[in-house]
């Protein structure tokens, strides 16, 4: 539904100037949650989003279309280090929630303890409040367990494998209303079932009188002394990337940065914020798949994209196991081999199921501005993490075998293409060189971490940037550790928690 409060790309010379209480930069998990909280609190809010606003009928179907229409930098951001691993993030209204699997896991209690111990923030009180917030978000976003009829064979097989191994595992809770099991979450749910923030929270911001600027990458935060008073930038055309008119938003009460782990640190740096902690403590849950080959067709594109998980190894050695369905146009580019051999391997596509492991890696990397508006992420897993990672691959293979796979395809350089049930131990003896694996990074943390000590953190436990006033960060970049669970719920919980503090601060200031 078009809205007068939404302004998309403007041509050169068509400049936009607006005054609001709060400007929120980025419309993904963090930005949308902060914006709707501020709007519900009665503030006027403007969201500035770098990418365009696409509704489900605009969503692509192919992987090519997804990279073109939804991904940040065409999905071509990758780690610089020993291995080049892709870092996947979206650039459109709704941010990465449009292309994620909407898996909903509340922040584990041990994380708040760890934050308290290592960073002087968090603790029981924060835990209680965040869990309450997460419960409310689950209700707003219709969180529900994957319905039986949408499970699809790959998720059912994984459950059978998990049960057979005797490990704790479950069908997942996701922010999805009446999932049709179209297995298309990663290209955006064309059925509109997945509650990405472009469909759920952001429309409410508009209904409450807020504004959205789309195709509007913020280039600078504007300061008056130490106080953040607004943002500025130029519209960017979503197809040809031409620069359009300028925009300038004045924010009477605050500027909230939620441009993601790879973008927020660089935006702060480009705007003159100086901190030794800026861009540091980048962490991730690198993930990689193992294909299982089954006697009967699995047809993994039928059923929820990611419907099963096990957290049995979250603490030791630090892993999460999940299912994942990938479309033919991704699997064709992803299976090892080329030429006639690859074509032969693709013949069994319908018999393949993919289970993945996400490693709770401790290794810290760093985010820095790159050339021509890109981002550099330096990151190489250390040996301890590579041991975890390799064990994750083995555990995933175990689930396949227990589920009845006749063989697994590990996709690990140096190992045979296919391993039979008696050979999967070879994975545990496999390489520890990250270059032997094709992993991706989709759960990202850090870069503007929160903490009590300004020398070691960018913002405090309420998202306020140290040494500045009116400037907040409210996305995955504030998270100072890994989580060992999917991050959306934690990011949204923190963003709402911070926004509530902003509103409280306002109330106290008014009373004073």
């Amino acid at each position: 539904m078009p809205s007068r409060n939404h302004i998309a790309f403007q041509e050169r010379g068509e400049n936009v100037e607006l005054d609001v209480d709060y400007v929120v930069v980025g419309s993904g998990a963090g930005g949308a949650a902060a914006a709707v909280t501020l709007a519900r609190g009665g503030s006027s809010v403007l969201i500035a989003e770098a990418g365009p606003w696409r509704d489900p009928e605009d969503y692509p179907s192919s992987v090519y279309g997804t990279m073109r229409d939804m991904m940040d930098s065409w999905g071509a951001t990758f780690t610089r280090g020993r291995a080049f691993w892709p870092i996947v993030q979206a650039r459109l209204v709704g941010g990465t929630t449009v292309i994620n699997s909407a898996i909903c896991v509340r922040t584990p209690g041990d994380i708040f303890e760890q934050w308290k111990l290592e960073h002087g923030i968090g603790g029981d009180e924060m835990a209680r409040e965040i869990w309450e917030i997460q419960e409310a978000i689950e209700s707003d976003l219709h969180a529900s367990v994957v319905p039986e009829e949408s499970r699809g064979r790959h998720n059912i097989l994984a459950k059978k494998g998990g049960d057979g191994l005797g490990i704790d595992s479950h069908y997942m809770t996701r922010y999805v209303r009446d999932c049709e099991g179209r297995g298309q979450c990663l290209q955006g749910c064309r059925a509109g079932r997945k509650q990405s923030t472009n469909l759920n929270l952001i429309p409410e911001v508009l209904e409450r009188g807020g504004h959205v600027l789309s195709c509007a990458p913020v280039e600078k935060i504007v300061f008056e002394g130490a106080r953040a008073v607004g943002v500025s930038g130029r519209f960017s055309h979503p197809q040809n990337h031409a620069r359009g008119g300028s925009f300038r938003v004045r924010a009477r009460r605050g500027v909230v940065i939620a441009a993601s782990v790879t973008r927020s640190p660089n935006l702060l740096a480009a705007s003159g914020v100086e901190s030794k902690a800026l861009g540091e403590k980048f962490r991730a849950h690198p993930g990689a798949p193992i294909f299982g080959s089954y006697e009967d067709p699995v047809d993994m594109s039928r059923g929820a994209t990611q419907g099963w998980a096990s957290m049995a190894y979250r603490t030791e050695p630090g892993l999460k196991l999940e299912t994942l369905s990938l479309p033919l146009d991704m699997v064709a580019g992803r299976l090892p081999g080329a030429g006639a051999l690859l074509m032969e391997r693709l013949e069994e596509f319908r018999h393949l199921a993919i289970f993945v492991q996400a490693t709770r890696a401790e290794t810290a990397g760093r985010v820095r501005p790159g050339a021509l508006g890109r981002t550099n992420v330096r990151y190489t897993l250390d040996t301890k993490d590579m041991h975890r990672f390799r064990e994750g691959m083995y555990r995933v293979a175990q689930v396949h075998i227990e589920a009845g796979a006749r063989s697994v395809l590990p996709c690990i350089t140096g190992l045979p293409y296919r391993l039979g049930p008696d050979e999967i131990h070879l994975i545990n003896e496999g390489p520890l060189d990250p270059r032997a694996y094709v992993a991706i990074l989709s759960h990202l943390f850090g870069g503007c971490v929160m903490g009590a000590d300004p020398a070691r953190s960018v913002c405090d436990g309420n998202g306020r940037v140290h040494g500045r006033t009116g400037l907040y960060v409210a996305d995955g970049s504030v998270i100072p550790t890994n989580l060992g669970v999917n991050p959306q719920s934690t990011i949204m919980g923190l963003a709402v928690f911070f926004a509530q503090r902003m509103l409280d601060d306002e109330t106290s200031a008014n009373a004073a």
Partner: protein
Amino acid sequence: MNWLIRHAMCAMMPGGGTLPGLTAEEAHAYAQRVRAESDWLYSLGLCLGAVMFAITPIITLLIPLPSFLLPARLLDRHAERVVGHRSYLIKQAVFLVRLNAGMCWGASAHNRSALAQPAYPDDPGTYRTD
């Protein structure tokens, strides 16, 4: 440059077996489109990957010919060896060609039907303008 990308992509996914291969027309149209639509780094990576594919038969087969002059049997062997080469740089450079070959092949209605996958509707590329 498009013909070189097309050549490398088709070599990655040839016909002749049970499944249909990537056709020169499909690959050419794709190369044109991706170079027109993608961001500069992606496009550059794809071009470099195609060049790497063309010049490496000397490494994979010890034959001093560009890949586009190889007979079909040797071209197939080159494709297989270059994507699994032990030099990470060579492997990564051609990875993007292979990835795009897969994306192009797997999105074609004809190839999808061979594996009982429904045809994709067109990617509309539209967005809210108001």
